[in-house]
């Protein structure tokens, strides 16, 4: 469990993180979303005690991370896949990390296998691709069998197979009852993995919501309709207070009605329809819309709906 209370970080006159209050619950994957520069990495560094908050506080499993006697067992983190000395082998990087808290050597072999690094672990980390670096970073995060897992943009640089692997790993870690906190700037990625979302923009909390609620609230459906007599159809719909807008290819976009309702209305009026399609605004668009106006959101909201 991660609990942030009024977490704030100021760099000079720039407010990187501005009064964030949220709780990351165990047993599910929580996505931490925001555009680049929204303050995600800064927040994660404060969670891990690397950066001191200007004000506010954050705890991991009930205590500031620094105060834990067995830190790697409390939280395992991947902040930056390139945070490895290029001259050292992946195995020795992990071994040195394991030795700080008495983790067995065999556990290093276990995590190397678990992330699929295998034989590459004996090679210099400087020769690794970004994807292999990510796997090494995840191996380091899992080393202490942590109760809380914190990963900053873990899918960066991974191939399709690696991305699929990360998704199932995150879900599995959450199913084991761990707290899983994963940042991304891609809504589509989170939609497939996370059960809960914390969205920030310009350092402020925009939404703290379940994934299902976000999908329902943030992506209003539209019905695209074409007809031999668009003008008559538009007049008909407007007469019933339905919001209608014209698309440039000679179609109408109808909101607030289902395809069934539009079809029945047109049929009753004897209007011939050429096309009747339900369109879901993509989550990515909803997310971009939501974060574009980040600065206008003054107070933390619990709903992810944008209008």
């Amino acid at each position: 469990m991660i609990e942030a209370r009024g977490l704030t970080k100021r760099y000079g006159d720039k407010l990187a993180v501005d009064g964030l209050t949220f709780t990351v619950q165990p047993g599910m994957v929580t996505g931490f979303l925001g555009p680049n520069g929204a303050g995600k990495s800064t927040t994660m560094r404060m969670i891990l005690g690397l950066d001191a908050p200007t004000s506010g506080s954050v705890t991991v499993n009930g205590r500031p991370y620094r105060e834990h006697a067995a830190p790697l067992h409390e939280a395992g983190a991947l902040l930056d896949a390139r945070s490895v000395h290029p001259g050292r082998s992946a195995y020795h990087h992990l071994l040195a990390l394991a030795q700080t808290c008495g983790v067995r050597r065999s556990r290093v072999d276990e995590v190397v296998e678990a992330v699929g690094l295998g034989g590459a672990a004996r090679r210099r980390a400087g020769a690794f691709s970004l994807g292999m670096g990510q796997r090494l970073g995840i191996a380091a995060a899992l080393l202490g069998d942590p109760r809380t897992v914190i990963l900053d943009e873990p899918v960066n640089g991974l191939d399709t197979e690696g991305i699929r692997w990360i998704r199932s790993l995150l879900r599995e870690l959450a199913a084991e009852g761990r707290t899983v906190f994963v940042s991304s700037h891609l809504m589509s990625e989170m939609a497939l993995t996370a059960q809960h979302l914390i969205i920030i923009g310009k350092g402020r909390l925009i939404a703290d919501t379940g994934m299902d609620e976000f999908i329902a609230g943030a992506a209003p459906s539209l019905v695209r309709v074409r007809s031999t007599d668009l003008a008559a159809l538009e007049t008909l719909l407007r007469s019933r207070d339905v919001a209608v807008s014209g698309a440039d290819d000679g179609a109408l976009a109808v909101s607030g009605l289902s395809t069934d309702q539009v079809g029945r209305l047109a049929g009753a009026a004897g209007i011939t329809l050429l096309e009747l399609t339900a369109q879901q605004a993509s989550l990515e668009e909803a997310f971009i819309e939501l974060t574009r106006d980040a600065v206008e959101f003054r107070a933390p909201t619990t709903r992810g709906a944008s209008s």
Partner: protein
Amino acid sequence: MTATRPTAPARPTGPAAQRVTQARVVRSEWTKLRTLPSTAWSLLAAVALIVGFGALYCLVRVTRPPSDPAAAAAFDPTAVSLSGVQVAQLAVGILGVLLVAGEYATGTIRVSLTAVPRRLPVLWGKAVVFGLTALVLCLPAVLAAFLVGQSILSAEQLDSRLSDPGVARAVLGSALLLSAGGLLGLALGALLRSTAWAVAGLFGVLFGPQLLTGLLPATWSDRIYPYLPGPAGVAVTAVRPDPATLAPWNGFAVFCLYIAVGLAVAAWQLRRRDV
């Protein structure tokens, strides 16, 4: 590269077993030191400098022995055979810088401090491991430089023996000075976090103050000079104490005091600064 079972194996050890202790961090830092090929090469280069430079200088001096009694009286065979120490001191000091500043340059420091969030054990661990490693490597190297050098100088009966007054202390002191210089570099690396700045700082601390005291009136500079880091440290390596410097062990103690202050400030910074 294929992914295997996407899960972490079941809990192998409890949280109590995974406590961070200073001893464990020392072990971790030892692993870090020995698994970086560049560190091993730098240390070997320092050893080669100590022995090679000393031998070379002895070969030069043996072909041109002191010509008159005054020059013969001033001739210090131990110092000649240990002339590589001054060069090696910079090499070891720069390696000390790299051990910390290199972690900042590569970002490894964030991984290290996430594993040891109390932070200070990392600094102490590095200091203990590097200080001892440097001493263990430099002591035999200095001894070898002395023995090789004296055997070269013996061709002209210019050699001294380890049992001569002050010689054993100068040999041991040279090894201690090298190790301490490494710690000075380490403290500067931790303090300044940048390799370039810390190396500049190392040169500055070892050589800068002497240059500045030259600008002061002689009565002042004579009084200050022995307490400057460079002259204070070197005092322990002189067979015949230089009247301009402190007594050998006093000088070394002053040098160690500078390092202790440097490490203390570095520790204070490490506790409070973001990484």
